[in-house]
């Protein structure tokens, strides 16, 4: 039963193969062990990780996380995850360093009026003091008072927080090309709670070469610091009377993912975000300094606008070389607080063998300052409507250098270890610094080390 090749002018190899098939021979692919069923693709994937984070002289954190993704049937996937973290250490107060010692107070505990005070020290080496309650109050506040030594960048050493967060999501394919997804998330710290819901769709075109996706996310946060929230731009006093405050945020993302060719996958996405509500950091202050000596006279609670609109454009590429993969992305960001930033991120996955890889990583980041960022305010000058000395809103650039090692334990599991070093530089000697501030470093470099141990398996 010879196959007549004249009508099919395929390559000689294919012709020969067709002839062999026509002869009724079973090709080499026929397995002898026919009793074994096929190996099904795993329905459940578990992704777990442990993060150890250490900022030099600042905050340390440990954070385990587990995510599970389960294919219920060929069209639907359920995913959920839980994470917890524990943060301790020191965070900047926002105040400027001084040649003289300074005192900082923040609420520590609220107790009913008249209760005897038995505790004298709080975490981070601070002293517990009783804050005189306002008239008519039924409670009084115990505040933690810290002395900041001279010529040191003011930090609150008693920073301690625990957070627990979880999310649940669903993805459903409605047709071969159209999927919808939705999810909810929740996060709780001792003085902050966040909950959100998201919904998204994606449509494939062009034989799954192009995917258009869109998603919206709504988030509602509640800030409830001990003792209430401080009145913005008033003198720091540890006696906070303000109400619990909310923040609402809506985010929308649209993206196009395009298979450019067999080796190159590119994504372009645009996101828009609208935040409305309490944006202040209740624990952060801004110093008001003497116009001649530069010594801090007052410490005011910061104030940020209640509205913030953010936009970003993100361009990501994955290119598969012979065995290795390069990932390179660029993100531009802009908001109506005056912050503009650019991020460039490159990774090179060096597939050293079929089962292990090494992935060096470099990230470069630069941002401009928010309009209302000030290193300090000056006595005698009119207090602006918004002011913050949070260096997160300052002009700076940062580099990250990292290395990741990944080892495949089986066809469906991998262990990986990632080590990263982050270095943030801002201008510690801004032009026009007054008096003693000229000899102080108003923006010490922030250096952080990250260790991430990951284990993914499927069954």
């Amino acid at each position, binding site marked *: 039963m010879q196959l007549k090749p004249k*009508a099919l002018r395929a390559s000689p190899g294919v012709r020969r193969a067709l002839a*062999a098939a026509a002869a009724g021979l*079973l090709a080499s692919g026929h397995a002898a062990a026919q009793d074994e069923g096929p190996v099904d693709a795993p329905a459940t994937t578990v992704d777990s990780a442990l993060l150890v984070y250490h900022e030099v002289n600042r905050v340390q954190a440990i954070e385990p996380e587990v995510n599970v993704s389960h294919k219920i049937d060929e069209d639907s996937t359920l995913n959920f995850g839980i994470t917890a973290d524990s943060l301790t250490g020191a965070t900047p107060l926002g105040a400027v360093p001084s040649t003289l010692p300074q005192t900082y107070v923040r609420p520590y505990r609220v107790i009913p009026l008249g209760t005897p005070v038995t505790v004298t020290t709080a975490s981070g080496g601070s002293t517990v003091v009783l804050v005189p309650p306002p008239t008519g109050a039924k409670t009084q506040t115990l505040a933690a008072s810290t002395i900041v030594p001279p010529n040191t960048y003011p930090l609150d050493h008693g920073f301690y927080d625990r957070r627990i967060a979880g999310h649940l999501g669903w993805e459903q394919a409605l047709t071969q090309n159209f999927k919808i997804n939705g999810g909810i998330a929740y996060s709780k710290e001792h003085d902050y709670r966040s909950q959100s819901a998201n919904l998204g769709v994606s449509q494939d075109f062009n034989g799954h070469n192009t995917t258009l996706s869109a998603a919206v996310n709504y988030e509602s946060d509640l800030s409830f610091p001990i003792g209430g929230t401080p009145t913005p731009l008033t003198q720091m006093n540890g006696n906070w009377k303000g109400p619990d405050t909310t923040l609402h945020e809506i985010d929308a993302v649209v993206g196009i993912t395009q298979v450019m060719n067999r080796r190159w996958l590119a994504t372009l996405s645009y996101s828009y975000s609208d935040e409305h509500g309490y944006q202040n950091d209740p624990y952060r202050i801004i110093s008001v300094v003497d116009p001649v000596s530069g010594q801090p006279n007052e410490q005011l609670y910061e104030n940020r606008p209640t509205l913030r609109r953010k936009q970003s454009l993100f361009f990501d590429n994955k290119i598969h070389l012979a065995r290795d993969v390069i990932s390179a992305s660029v993100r531009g960001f802009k908001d109506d607080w005056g912050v503009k930033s650019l991020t460039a991120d490159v990774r090179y996955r060096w597939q050293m063998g079929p089962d292990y890889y090494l992935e060096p990583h470099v990230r470069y980041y630069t941002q401009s300052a928010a309009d209302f960022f000030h290193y300090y305010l000056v006595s005698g000058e009119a207090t602006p409507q918004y002011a913050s000395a949070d260096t997160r809103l300052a002009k700076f650039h940062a580099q990250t250098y990292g290395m990741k090692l990944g080892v495949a334990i089986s066809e469906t599991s991998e262990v990986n270890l990632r080590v990263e070093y982050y270095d943030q530089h801002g201008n510690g000697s801004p032009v026009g610094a007054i008096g003693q501030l000229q000899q102080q470093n108003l923006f010490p470099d922030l250096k952080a080390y990250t260790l991430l141990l990951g284990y993914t398996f499927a069954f």
Partner: protein
Amino acid sequence: MRIAGPKVIQHRGPIAWSFCGLCVGLFLGPIAQAVDLDLSAYRGKVVYVDFWASWCGPCRQSFPWLDDLVHEYMSQNFVVIGVNVDKDRDKAERFLSDTPADFPILYDPKGELAAAYKVAGMPSGILIDRTGHVRFQHAGFSEKQKGLYEEQLQTLLAEKSP
């Protein structure tokens, strides 16, 4: 945005043209183009040509079903030919050792046959009737589609040999 191309291409009635080299037939069928593979050796048999690859998840699910079809309809002169499009033969053979195939496998690493058949998605199944003409072609495999594909197969099986 217009979605590119129908997923299930059906040819009603015989379409005959000659196939020269790997060039696509100039005759445009009522719905879409297709190529006749001269399977004169299979004349009288219903042929299911299945394009698959080791990296294709749904292919893993389709193999047991194809094996069942072979066992059930073999007596009615039905054959399945699996065409593998892996660039790396080792990967195909590893797939086959985990997921057995009770039908012959053809290796098409350059994708010449896939291009000739205008394969629109992975996996792709092409049903060829007893006269050697392509009658049904579908891209993708799912539990939901099994019934439809089997119905199409039974239609062709019911037709008498020429």
